[in-house]
């Protein structure tokens, strides 16, 4: 008998048939009788003081039912407890072009749009800050408070200056990573209903319904028990729907104000303003090496361009410094980071949250060092790999680590070492590796409760109702939960009925962010199923006159492992159990172990397990135009265990795709104080014609704490691809583009430059706070 009957199989996911039939109801597909359409008036100025908002002309337009201004929603909010700096509708100041100011509800969208034109707003313009240097040095009123510095951190683990002095070779690099955005194909949408009984329901395209629930309670000053948030399937998220958005709060308030359902669907332009995407980050990395290529110590600085509000920015800042040491064994480490407010849409978490930028910096830096030391790019990494069951110098606990296997797979698959030295000019191969979290180890708001909870309820025919707060954003989380429960209970995926992300019905899951659902909700689902199974086995053992330990659940039966004929159908056992003790339910929870190290700022970075990835990218460059094509990619990912390899490969391929877009064309740029081109035509998202051949290798390390050994897949595989592109271009053309994205004009510029490089040369002068000198874990002392 095979080990598993569901886990590890490339089965069709439960929501697949609804999706291929167009039956999946996304938020904007919902409508209710008497529904009104809401629209939001947004700031035309990047930075301005609001003197007056006069809605009176709009209020009298036929078809307009309500107009809201900032005074109607005065309570500030923010996704992080430390950054409660947003207002649903700005009251005193606007901080970027697109900042919400007022809102209307009307009988149709045309009337609503017309009403927006009739809202009179008077502003006084303020000087605006559109870049890191401007935010640091620019004159004028800061965007918030007394300084444009949102957060500055400085941590040191051991004496890095001594490590530099002890090194045979020290290298410093400065690189820049331009911001970009998630671009989910589905625009955000929310539908709110306020019933006669005073109960509010909000359907929303959100990755984090629990946090939206909390924010609605706070901003609307309603008890959470009077609010029901239902997350609809997300038409793509990638981190872009994991914040609390103005339109969600506004739709709710408009529904309360009018007593009628109100739907707000963002236009594509508004999605660019909602943003919360990749931070532009300027970085300096300085590393000491021994002659043989072992890292002695590293100093890393990052400057984040945060946009107009905090969002996840404090976490993003720490993330730019957190995962350097989970990928390489770094004995001494210093990290200094600063996030600055600028007059742009707020940045936040995009696939890889805060780590693709430093990953780019580190992986091109290592390639340069390898060349200087006369090592090949693979060898220098092999000499610095972390070990399984170890702890990093910044106290991050590593359980399973399959990085060596990942490296072997892509290096052998691509014949990297042979081919990289024998390709014609213009063609090249690049290599890079990475690691990522399987869920953030600490919750966004401090508490001791579980991060994920699952409830099961069995029916008399053997069906299993599965309730969980997690929302499927396309990554396949519904399947993962169903597969885990089906495996434990010995039923089929079809027997599981999922109810997800409904705060009235489902127990908590913190959300589909930080690659946490498979690991955390998966563990909760496994625990819930095991609880139920224990009860079923106890009943079955009595009926079959055997010990519960002898039983297995499989093929919709519960039977004795050694005498398979001795058994009952799953439904029969459920009926026996229900007859004996009433409704058959069970629940399970997952709380990650407390992993934070003994220093301030240790809350960002810990995860119960890290995934690992390695990539080789081939490029084909046009010497005359500077255009870069990617014909082939080899990618290996340490998934722990693939619950469904088909879905894992889908996540890996999607990550590679998104990485190539970021590496070569996607960028969120600004001109004259506003987004240069908030459209799907001018924000360049790669098409089917640009899809490379991909070779995906899954490495299974069976993590001891993951559900069936599983780790994450949704974000990690993006990370190595971007630097691998840059390294491949160096291999092809001998030029260094130390700035993402790598556009053809930059390639041509570098080809003609004396130093064969395009990229920043220095970082601005900035007085970081005094270093917090953290203790080094015992195993790193004296090393």
């Amino acid at each position, binding site marked *: 008998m095979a080990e598993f009957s569901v886990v590890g199989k490339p089965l069709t996911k439960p929501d697949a048939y609804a999706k291929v*039939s*167009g039956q999946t109801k996304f938020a904007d597909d919902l409508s209710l009788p008497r529904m009104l359409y809401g629209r939001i008036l947004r700031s035309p100025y990047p930075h301005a003081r609001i003197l007056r908002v006069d809605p009176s002309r709009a209020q009298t337009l036929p078809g307009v039912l309500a107009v809201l201004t900032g005074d109607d929603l005065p309570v500030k909010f923010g996704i992080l407890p430390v950054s409660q700096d947003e207002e649903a509708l700005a009251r005193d100041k606007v901080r970027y072009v697109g900042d919400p100011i007022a809102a209307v509800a009307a009988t149709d969208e045309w009337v609503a749009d017309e009403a927006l034109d009739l809202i009179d707003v008077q502003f006084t313009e303020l000087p605006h800050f559109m870049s890191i240097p401007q935010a640091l040095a620019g004159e004028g009123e800061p965007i918030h408070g007394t300084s444009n510095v949102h957060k500055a951190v400085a941590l040191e683990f051991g004496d890095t200056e001594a490590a530099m002095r002890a090194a045979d070779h020290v290298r410093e690099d400065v690189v820049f990573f331009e911001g970009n955005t998630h671009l989910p*194909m*589905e625009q955000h949408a929310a539908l709110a209903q306020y019933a006669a009984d005073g109960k509010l329901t909000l359907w929303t395209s959100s990755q984090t319904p629990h946090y939206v629930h909390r924010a609605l309670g706070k901003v609307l000053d309603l008890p959470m028990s009077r609010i029901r948030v239902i997350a609809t399937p997300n038409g793509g998220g990638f981190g872009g729907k994991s914040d609390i958005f103005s339109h969600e709060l506004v739709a709710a308030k408009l529904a309360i104000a009018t007593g009628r359902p109100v739907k707000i669907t963002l236009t594509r332009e508004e999605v660019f303003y909602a943003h919360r995407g990749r931070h532009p980050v300027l970085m300096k990395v300085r590393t000491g090496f021994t002659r043989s290529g072992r890292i002695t110590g590293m100093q890393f600085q990052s400057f984040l361009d945060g946009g107009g509000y905090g969002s996840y920015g404090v976490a993003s800042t720490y993330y730019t410094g957190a995962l350097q040491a989970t990928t390489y064994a770094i004995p001494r480490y210093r990290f200094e980071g600063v996030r600055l407010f600028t007059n742009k849409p707020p940045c936040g978490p995009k696939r890889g949250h805060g780590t693709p930028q430093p990953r780019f910096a580190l992986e091109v830096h290592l390639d340069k060092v390898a060349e200087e030391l006369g090592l090949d790019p693979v060898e220098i990494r092999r000499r610095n790999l972390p070990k399984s069951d170890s702890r990093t110098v910044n106290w991050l606990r590593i359980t399973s680590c399959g990085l060596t296997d990942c490296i072997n797979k892509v290096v052998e698959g691509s014949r990297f070492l042979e081919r990289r030295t024998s390709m014609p000019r213009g063609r090249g191969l690049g290599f890079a590796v990475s690691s990522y979290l399987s869920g953030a180890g600490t919750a966004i708001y401090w508490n001791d409760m579980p991060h994920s909870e699952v409830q099961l309820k069995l029916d008399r025919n053997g069906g299993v109702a599965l309730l969980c707060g997690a929302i499927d954003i396309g990554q396949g989380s519904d399947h993962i939960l169903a597969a885990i429960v089906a495996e434990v209970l010995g039923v089929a995926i079809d027997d599981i009925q999922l109810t997800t992300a409904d705060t009235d019905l489902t127990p908590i899951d913190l959300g589909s962010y930080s690659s946490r659902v498979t690991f955390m909700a998966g563990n909760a689902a496994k625990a819930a199923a095991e609880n139920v199974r224990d009860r079923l086995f106890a009943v079955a053992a009595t009926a079959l006159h055997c010990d519960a330990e002898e039983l297995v659940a499989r093929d919709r039966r519960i039977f004795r492992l050694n005498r398979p004929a001795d058994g009952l159908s799953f439904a029969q056992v459920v009926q026996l159990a229900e007859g004996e003790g009433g409704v058959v339910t069970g629940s399970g929870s997952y709380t990650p172990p407390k992993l934070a190290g003994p220093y301030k700022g240790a809350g960002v970075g810990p995860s119960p397990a890290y995934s690992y990835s390695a990539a080789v990218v081939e490029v084909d460059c046009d010497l005359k135009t500077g255009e870069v094509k990617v014909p082939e990619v080899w990618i290996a990912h340490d998934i722990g265990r693939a619950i469904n390899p088909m879905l894992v490969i889908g996540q890996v391929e999607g*990550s590679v795709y*998104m990485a190539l877009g970021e590496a070569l064309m996607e960028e969120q740029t600004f001109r004259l104080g506003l987004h240069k081109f908030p459209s799907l*035509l001018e924000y360049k998202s790669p*098409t089917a014609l640009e*899809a490379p051949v991909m070779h995906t290798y899954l490495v299974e390390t069976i993590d001891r704490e993951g559900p069936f050994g599983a780790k994450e897949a949704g974000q990690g595989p993006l990370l190595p691809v971007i630097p691998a592109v840059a390294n491949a271009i160096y291999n092809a053309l001998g030029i260094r583009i130390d700035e993402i994205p790598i556009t053809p004009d930059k390639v041509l510029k570098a080809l003609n430059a004396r130093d064969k490089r395009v990229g920043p040369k220095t970082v601005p002068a900035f007085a970081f706070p005094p270093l917090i000198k953290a203790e080094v874990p015992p195993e790193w002392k004296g090393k």
Partner: protein
Amino acid sequence: MSIADKVVVRLRVNGEDTAIMAPPYKTLLEVLREDLGLTGTKHGCELGECSMCGVLVDGKPFLSCLAMPLDLEGREVTTIEGMPRGRELHPLQVAFAELGAAQCGYCTPAMLLTAKALLDREPRPSREAIKDALSGVLCRCTGYLKIFEAVELAASRATRG
């Protein structure tokens, strides 16, 4: 502008003739989703820059966000709801489900209809022809590969049978 005047719009959608009253400036996308309840047709930009709203008109891929219903009288509109034959899913729909070609599922209706137009014209297309045919529908989830593979699987099943 205030309350809009309406005109009679006659359409043939998924083999059914229908007449509704709608403002003349409403696009096919809006009429399909709001007046006919066919919400399987999606939208990503409403400017012709993503093709999420793709439908077929007389078997050819069209953008419903740019098509004016009054211009389509006498023509055959097919949406994702019209893709199965009765209760039987189209082979492309089955292949997309089986191979994980629909991740978030948002581009899936347009992707499927566009692929159907290709297979109706060219039953065994090459990988290059598939890429070319699908080049107008953006997908942010899959990296497109599972979509290409699903089209190939559907084509091989259809031509083998």
